[in-house]
C-alpha cells in the first residue's frame, strides 16, 4: 500500500509539470512587442536614436572632411599603415572593411529612427499630442541627418523611410528622390520641432533637434545638393525657399555669435584667452552660437568623439595640449592663409614653431614619437586639454573626447545666409553677414569687406570653419558637377621648411595629387564587405572598382 501511495505521489509530481515550464521570457528586459506603451517609453526610444550620433568612429565624416580637404593631411604614426594618408591622396583604402563604421552607424541611426516612427503609434499619446509631433520631428530630423552624412560620403545611397529585412535590400536612390526625402524630413522638423528661441529654450531640451537646427540643416542640404549635383531646383524646392528658412534663424532664433572666437573650444580658450589656469572665458558647450551639436559626455560613458584623441601631439602632453595620435596635422598652406592679425589663426592651429615649442626637441620630439607627416602644425580647435599636469574627465585619454561636436554654429548660418543673399543678388545683406563674422575674427572692422565675390565667401568659410568637418564638402559643392576642379584645389606639394626636422622618422611627404579624386567625383568607397553582403544590388562608386 505504501508503495502505491509513493508511486502515486511521484506520478502526480511528474504530471504536474507541463511544457509551459519552458515558456520563459525575460523578466528584467523587454521585448519589442510589449515595450512601446507610454510617452515615457517614447522618450527612451527617441533617446536611442540620438545615441547613434555618438558612434562616429575612426572613419567618420569629420575626419574625412578635414584630411581629404586642403586643410589637413593624414598624419598619425609612422607605422599606422597609411590609411589616413590614403584618404588624403584620394587612393584606394586598404582593407575590405574601410568605411564600415560610417556606413553601418549612419544606417544604424536611420534604422533606429525608423523603428521609432513605426512603433510610436503603439503608444498612448492621449494628452501628449504636442510631444508626439515634437518626437516625430526629431526622429525625422535625425533620419535626414544620417542620410545626408551618408550621401556626402557615398553619393546616391538607398534612401530608407522604413525598416527593411536583410533579404530585402533596395538599390540606389536617385539623388533628387533621396534629397527630397531628406528635405521633407527637415521641413517637417522645421514646422513641428521645438521652436522656442535660444533664451527661452528649456535647459533640458539642449541637444534636441529644434526648428532652428532643422532650418540651418535645410540650408546646408540644399546648398550641397544644388552645388554637387548642379541643380538649383530640388523637386520644386528653390534658392528662395532656402533663403527664407535661413533668414528665419537670423531673425527669430535668438542665436548669435559669441564675442570671442577662441572661447568656442576648450583648448583655444586656454591658449588664447585664459592662460594656464583659468577657463572662465570659455563659452561652454551650450552657448548662444551653437545651433546644434552632438553631445558627448565625460566619464562613465563609453562614447567619445574620436576626432579629439586623433589630433593631439603624438604620445606627449604639453600644457594645455593633451596627448593624441598626432593625426590630421594642418597643412602649412592653411596657416599661411590667415592674416597674422586674424585671431582665428592661433585659435584654430597649433604651430609648434610659433609657440616656441620646437627649439627644444625635448618638448615635442616627433621623431621619437613616430609622428608621420609632421608638418609643424596641429589642429587645435578640438584638441584634448591637459592643464595643471592633469587631463580632464576620465583617466583614459583615449576616452577623453567628451567635448560636444558642434554640427552647425551661428557663424556658419551667417556665411550661408551671405552666400544665399549674394547669389540672389542682395550683396548688401551678404556683406553685413560676412563682415559680422570678420569683425569678431579681427576684433574690429578694419578688415571688413566693402564688396565681395563668391570666392571671398568660400574663402571666409574655409578660415572660419577650418577643422570643423565642413571644408571638403564645400569644395565638392563648389565644383558644380565639374570635378576636374578638384585637381587644382586638392593638389599641393610640401612647402614646409623641414630643415629642423630632417632627422625625422619616415617623414612621408605631404604631397597630394588632386587628380586622384576626379573619376571618383570626390566620393569615398562603400565598404567592399558591405557590397558583398548586399550581393550585387549596389555597385561600388566609380573610380574604386
Amino acid at each position, binding site marked *: 500500500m505504501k508503495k502505491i501511495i509513493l508511486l502515486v505521489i511521484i506520478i502526480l*509530481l511528474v504530471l504536474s509539470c507541463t511544457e509551459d515550464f519552458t515558456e520563459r521570457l525575460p523578466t528584467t528586459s523587454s521585448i519589442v512587442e510589449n515595450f512601446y506603451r507610454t510617452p515615457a517609453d517614447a522618450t527612451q526610444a527617441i533617446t536611442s536614436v540620438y545615441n547613434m550620433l555618438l558612434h562616429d568612429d575612426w572613419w567618420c565624416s569629420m575626419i574625412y572632411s578635414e584630411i581629404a580637404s586642403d586643410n589637413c593631411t593624414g598624419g598619425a604614426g609612422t607605422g599606422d599603415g597609411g590609411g589616413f594618408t590614403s584618404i588624403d591622396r584620394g587612393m584606394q583604402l586598404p582593407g575590405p572593411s574601410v568605411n564600415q563604421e560610417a556606413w553601418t552607424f549612419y544606417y544604424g541611426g536611420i534604422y533606429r529612427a525608423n523603428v521609432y516612427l513605426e512603433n510610436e503609434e503603439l503608444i498612448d499619446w492621449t494628452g501628449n499630442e504636442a510631444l508626439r509631433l515634437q518626437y516625430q520631428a526629431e526622429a525625422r530630423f535625425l533620419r535626414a541627418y544620417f542620410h545626408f552624412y551618408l550621401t556626402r560620403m557615398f553619393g546616391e545611397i538607398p534612401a530608407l523611410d522604413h525598416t527593411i529585412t536583410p533579404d530585402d535590400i533596395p538599390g540606389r536612390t536617385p539623388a533628387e528622390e533621396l534629397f527630397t526625402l531628406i528635405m521633407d524630413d527637415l521641413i517637417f522638423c522645421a514646422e513641428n520641432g521645438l521652436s522656442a528661441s535660444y533664451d527661452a529654450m528649456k535647459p533640458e531640451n539642449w541637444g534636441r533637434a529644434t526648428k532652428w537646427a532643422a532650418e540651418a540643416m535645410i540650408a546646408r542640404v540644399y546648398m550641397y545638393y544644388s552645388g554637387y549635383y548642379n541643380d538649383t531646383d530640388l523637386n520644386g524646392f528653390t534658392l528662395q525657399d532656402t533663403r527664407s528658412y535661413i533668414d528665419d534663424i537670423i531673425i527669430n532664433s535668438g542665436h548669435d555669435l559669441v564675442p570671442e572666437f577662441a572661447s568656442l573650444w576648450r583648448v583655444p580658450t586656454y591658449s588664447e584667452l585664459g592662460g594656464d589656469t583659468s577657463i572662465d572665458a570659455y563659452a561652454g558647450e551650450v552657448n548662444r552660437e551653437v545651433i546644434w551639436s552632438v553631445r558627448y559626455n565625460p566619464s562613465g560613458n563609453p562614447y567619445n568623439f574620436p576626432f579629439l584623441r586623433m589630433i593631439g601631439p603624438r604620445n606627449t602632453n604639453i600644457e594645455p595640449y593633451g596627448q593624441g595620435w598626432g593625426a590630421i596635422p594642418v597643412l602649412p598652406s592653411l596657416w599661411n592663409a590667415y592674416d597674422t592679425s586674424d585671431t582665428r589663426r592661433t585659435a584654430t592651429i597649433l604651430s609648434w614653431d610659433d609657440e616656441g615649442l620646437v627649439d627644444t626637441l625635448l618638448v615635442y620630439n616627433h621623431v621619437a614619437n613616430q609622428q608621420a607627416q609632421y608638418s609643424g602644425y596641429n589642429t587645435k580647435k578640438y584638441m584634448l586639454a591637459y592643464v595643471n599636469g592633469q587631463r580632464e574627465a576620465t583617466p583614459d585619454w583615449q576616452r577623453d573626447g567628451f567635448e560636444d561636436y558642434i554640427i552647425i554654429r551661428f557663424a556658419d548660418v551667417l556665411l550661408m545666409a551671405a552666400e544665399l543673399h549674394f547669389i540672389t543678388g542682395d550683396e548688401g545683406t551678404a556683406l553685413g553677414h560676412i563682415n559680422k563674422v570678420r569683425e569678431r575674427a579681427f576684433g574690429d572692422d578694419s578688415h571688413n569687406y566693402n564688396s565681395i565675390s563668391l570666392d571671398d565667401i568660400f574663402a571666409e568659410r574655409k578660415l572660419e570653419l577650418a577643422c570643423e568637418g565642413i571644408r571638403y564638402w564645400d569644395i565638392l559643392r563648389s565644383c558644380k558637377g565639374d570635378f576636374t576642379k578638384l585637381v587644382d584645389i586638392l593638389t599641393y606639394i610640401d612647402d614646409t621648411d623641414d630643415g629642423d626636422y630632417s632627422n625625422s622618422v619616415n617623414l612621408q611627404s605631404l604631397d597630394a595629387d588632386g587628380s586622384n579624386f576626379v573619376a571618383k567625383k570626390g566620393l569615398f568607397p562603400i565598404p567592399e564587405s558591405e557590397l558583398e553582403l548586399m550581393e550585387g544590388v549596389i555597385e561600388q562608386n566609380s573610380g574604386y572598382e
Partner: protein
Amino acid sequence: MKIRLKQNWHYYLIMHSIMVLLFFILSSHNVNAQEITISGTVTDKVSGEPLAGASVLIKGTMIGTATNADGTYTLNIYDSGVTLVFSYIGYQPQEILVTDQTVIDVGLAFIAEDMEEIVVVGYGVQKKKLVTGATSQVRNEDLVKNNANRLESSLQGLTPGMIIVKQSGQPGSDYNISIRGLSSPNDNNPLVLIDGVPGNLNTLNPSDIETVDVLKDAASAAIYGSRAANGVILITTKKGKAGEPQITYDAYYGISNASKKVDMLNAKEYAMIMNEASTNVGNDPFFTQDYIDNLGEGTDWQEEAYNKNAPVQSHYLGITGGTEISTYSISLSYNNEEGIFNYEDKSRYERIGVRINSEHKIKEYLKVGENLTYTNRRVHGLGVGNQYNNFLRSLIEASPLIDVYDPDVYDGFGRSSFNDQQINPIASMHYNFNEVKKYDDIIGDIYAELEIVPGLRLRSDFGGSLSFNHISNATDSFILTPATYNAIPIYEQDMERKFYYNIDNTLTYETIFGDHNILAMAGMNIQDNRFFKVEGRIEGYLSNIEPVLTNVTTIDTAILKGDYGKGDSRFSYFGRISYNYKEKYMTTISLRRDASSRFGQNNRVGYFPAVSAGWAISEEKFLESVNWLNYMKIRASWGQNGKEPSQPYRFLATVGSLDRIYSFGSGRQVGISPDILPNQNLKWEASTQTNIGFDSRFLNNFRFTFDWYRKNSKDWIVPSTVPGISGIAGISTTNPYINGGNVINTGVEFELGYIKNFGDLMIDIRANMAHNKNEVTEVPGEVINGSESVLYNGSEEFYRVEEGYPLGYFWGFITNGIFQTQEEIDSYIGLNNRSMQRTADPGDVRRVDFNGDSVINNDDKTMIGDPNPDFIYGFNVALSWRGFDFSMNIQGQAGNQIVRAYRMEERFYGNYMTDILDRWHWIDVNENGIIDEGEGTSNTMPRVTLSSESNQNWRKFGDLSVHDADFLRVKSINIGYDFKSLLRNAPFQRFRIYISATNLLTITKYDGLDPEVGYGSYYDDEGLLQDAYASGIDIGFHPAARTYLIGVNVTF
C-alpha cells in the same frame, strides 16, 4: 621585495580539522577478537600455475593480504563466518565463506576481467561487456597518479579522443576540453554531470572521484539530447560500501619550478638591436657604442618574477563505510598552490572541499540517498589573458635596460630612460592584478529508488547546484608611463548567485526470459536555472583599511549594476531499450525529446534518436577454436545530438538600454531600442555521428579497442552577417542568430593494453592514440572572421572559419625567405613585369603570390597552420613489485601549430627573443672599411626596423609567426613503497610513501614557453565567450610547472 605570505587561516583550519580527525580515528582503532589463521595457495585454475600477488581480502573491508611468489598466503582473521575474496588481475574473482577451514586453496579462472566491470551510462549503469557505444572509463587509481590538484589535468593522456588543454598554466586557470574534434564555432566543452547534476570539473578533487565515464559517440550521449553534441562526461563521486569503516589519508607536498624560460636579448644585445633597427630605416643610432660597451646583462625580467620552489600541497581525508542498511562516504580536502611566477603573493589557488555521500535502505523496496559536495575556491592570479592583461607578455617584452627598482623614483620602481612608453612590468604587477575571486559551490542530489515489483524500479532524483561568486578588485592610482596610468583609484566588488535544479524521474524494468535479456528505461527531466548579480564600481581614494565599496572616499562616478532572472528551463522525456541475447547479440535504442526555453515556439522541441548494436563474435562457434582470441565484440552506433545557443533569448527581439544614453541639457537620458533582430525559427545545432569499433582481449594479457567515427555537425547557431544597411548591424544591436554551417570530424581511436604478472612483478602497460580530421564543409556567409588586435594592437585577423579548412585554422601569407638584395626585389615580378613588393628593402620578407594574380594582397593568404592536433596520444606504464610501485604517464600531440607573438609589433622597442640575432643584417664594415652588403646573413629572419618598414614583415600576418607544436610530455612519474608489505601486522591496510615528478620532461621543437597552449577564445566585456573555436595562440602563455613532490597514502 619578494614576499612570501604566511599560510592563511584556511590552511590552519583545515589542517587542524584533518589532524584532529586522524588522531581520533587512530586512537579508536583497536583489536579484540580471537584470531584464526588461514593459509593456502592461489593458482590458475587451468594451468595450475601459482599466482603471485593475488589479493585475499575479507569481504567488505580492505583487510587482507597478497600471495607470495609461490602463490601462498597466510591471513589472520578474527572471526569465522566472514567471506574471503580472492582476486587477481585478469581473473574472475572468487568468494569463499570461512566456516571451519584453515587451509583454503583456490583456482581462479582467467577471464577478460575488465569486460565484467560496470560502467556508467546515461541514467544507469551497464556491464562493459554489453556496451554498444564508444565510451571510456577512468578510475580513481589512475586519476590520482598524476598528482594534480585539478581533475582536468589528471585526465590528460588517459582517454583517447578527448583533448584537454589548459587555458593557462597558472594555478586556478581553466581547461578547454573537446571530445572528437570541434563540432561548431561555439563552445565545444562537453556536458559534465557530477552525480547527475551539471557541474564544473574545477570544483572537484581527483581523490573524491570514483570513476569518470566519457560518452564519446552520439549514441551513448543521445540520452542527454540537446546538451550532448560535445559529448558527455559523467562523474561518479566515491560511494560508501558495507563493511568496516575505511579511512584514507592522502597528502603530498611539493615544489614547482618553471621548466623553461624564453631566451631574451640581454641589455647589450638589446641596445645593439635597437641601434640597428634605427639605422636600418636611415636614422641615427639611439645609443653610442661606448654606452653599449658598458652595458652588462641588464634585467632578466622573467627571473625577477620567478617564484623559485613554489610550494604546492594537498591533503585529503576520506572515510567510507556502512552497514547493509546504510552506507556513507565523507571527505575533507584542502589544496594550495602557488604560481611559478608570483609577485606579492598574487598568484595562488586554494580549494577546500567537503563531500558527504550516503545511501539508506529504508525498506526492502525503498532506498534513499544523497550526494553533496561543497567547494570553496579562492583564486588570486596575475593576468594571463589578452595582450592588455598578460603579465608574462609584459615580462617577456620588457626592456632589459630598465632597472627593476630605483630608489630615486618616487615609488621605488625603475623607469625607462630610453623610451617613456616602456613599462616596468614588475611595477605593473605591483599596481595591477589585485583581483581576488572567491567561489562557493554546492552541488548534489537527493534521490529515492522504489522497487515496485521485482525488476521494476522507479528512481526520483532531485539535484541542484548553488554557486556564489565574489570578486573584489582594488586598483590604486599609479603612473607607469605617460600613456599607462590610473588617475583615480578604482574599487570593484561583484557578486553573483546562480541556482540550478533538476528533477529526474526514471522507471526501469529489467527482465530475463530464457536467453533474452531486456532492460527498458523511461524517464522525464526538468531543469531550471536562475541567477542574481550585482556589480559595484567606485572611483575615489581608498582609505587605509581593507577596501570595500563603502570605504572609498567617493567621487561621483559610482556604478551599480544588477540583474536577476530565470536563465532558462528545459523539459524532457526520454527512453531507452537495451536487449541482448546470451550477451552475444546486443542492441540499444534510445530517444530523447527536449523542450528548451532557449528556443522560440516554432522550434522549441527537438528529438534526439540513437541506435547501436554489438556482436560478441568471439562467442560464436566458429571462433571457439581460435585460442589466442579471448574475447571480441564488434560495435556499431548511430545517433543525433543537439547544442543550444550559449545565451538565452537568442530568438527574441529584446529591447535593451545598454550603451544607449544621450545627454539633453545636463542630464543623461537612458535610451532603449531593439537589441537584436528576432529569429523565432532558431533551432538546435545538430550533430550526427556514426561509430564503428571493436573491443578485444587476446593472448590472455592483451586488450585492444578500436573506434572509427564520423561526426557531422551542422546548423551552428551563429550571428548572421547581415548588410549594415538593414541597420541592425549597428552598435548595441546584434545581428539575428541563424542556423548554418557544417563541419565533419572523422577519426580513429586505439587503445592497447597489456597486463601480466611475472612472479611478484606486475606489469600494466597502456597506450592510446587518436587521430581526428576536422573539415568545415559549409559556412554561413562564407567566412566567420576571427578577431583583430589579438596578438597586439592592430594585428590582423589570422584565424577564421572557412569551407574546406579546419575550424579556426591559421590564415596568412606564405613567405619564401628574405630578400637578399635590391636586385632580388626588382626581379620579383608578376605578369605585368612590375615588382610585386617594390616597397620592400633588402632584409624584408618575401611573400608568395599564392593565387598567381601578380598582386600580393589578402587574397594570397591561405592556410598556414592548424591549432587542432592530428594526433593525440597517451602512454601509461605501471609496475609493482613487493610493495614497490612505479608508474609513468606520457602524453603528447602532433600535427598542430601555434601562433606566437611576444612583441607588440606596432611599437619598435619591445625586447626580442635571442633568435633575432640570426636576423638578416648589413655587415658593418668590411676589411676595406666600406659598409658591406647583408647578402646571405639570413634567409629566415627579417631585418629589424622601427616597425615602420613599408613591407610590414611581422604585421602582415604570415608563416613567420607560426610554429609546430608537436610535443611529447612525461606528465608524471611516481615511485612508491607500501610499508604494509614490510609490516604485515601493522594496524593499517596501506602505508605508502612516494615521490613523484610532474611535467618532468617535454620533448618539443617549439621554443616558446610551453607547447600545450589552450589560449585563443576570450571573454568580451559582457562576459560572453568569443571565438570559442580559436586556440593555440601564444602571446605569453603561462607554462606548466615542473613539480617534484613527496606524498603519503594511508588507509586504515
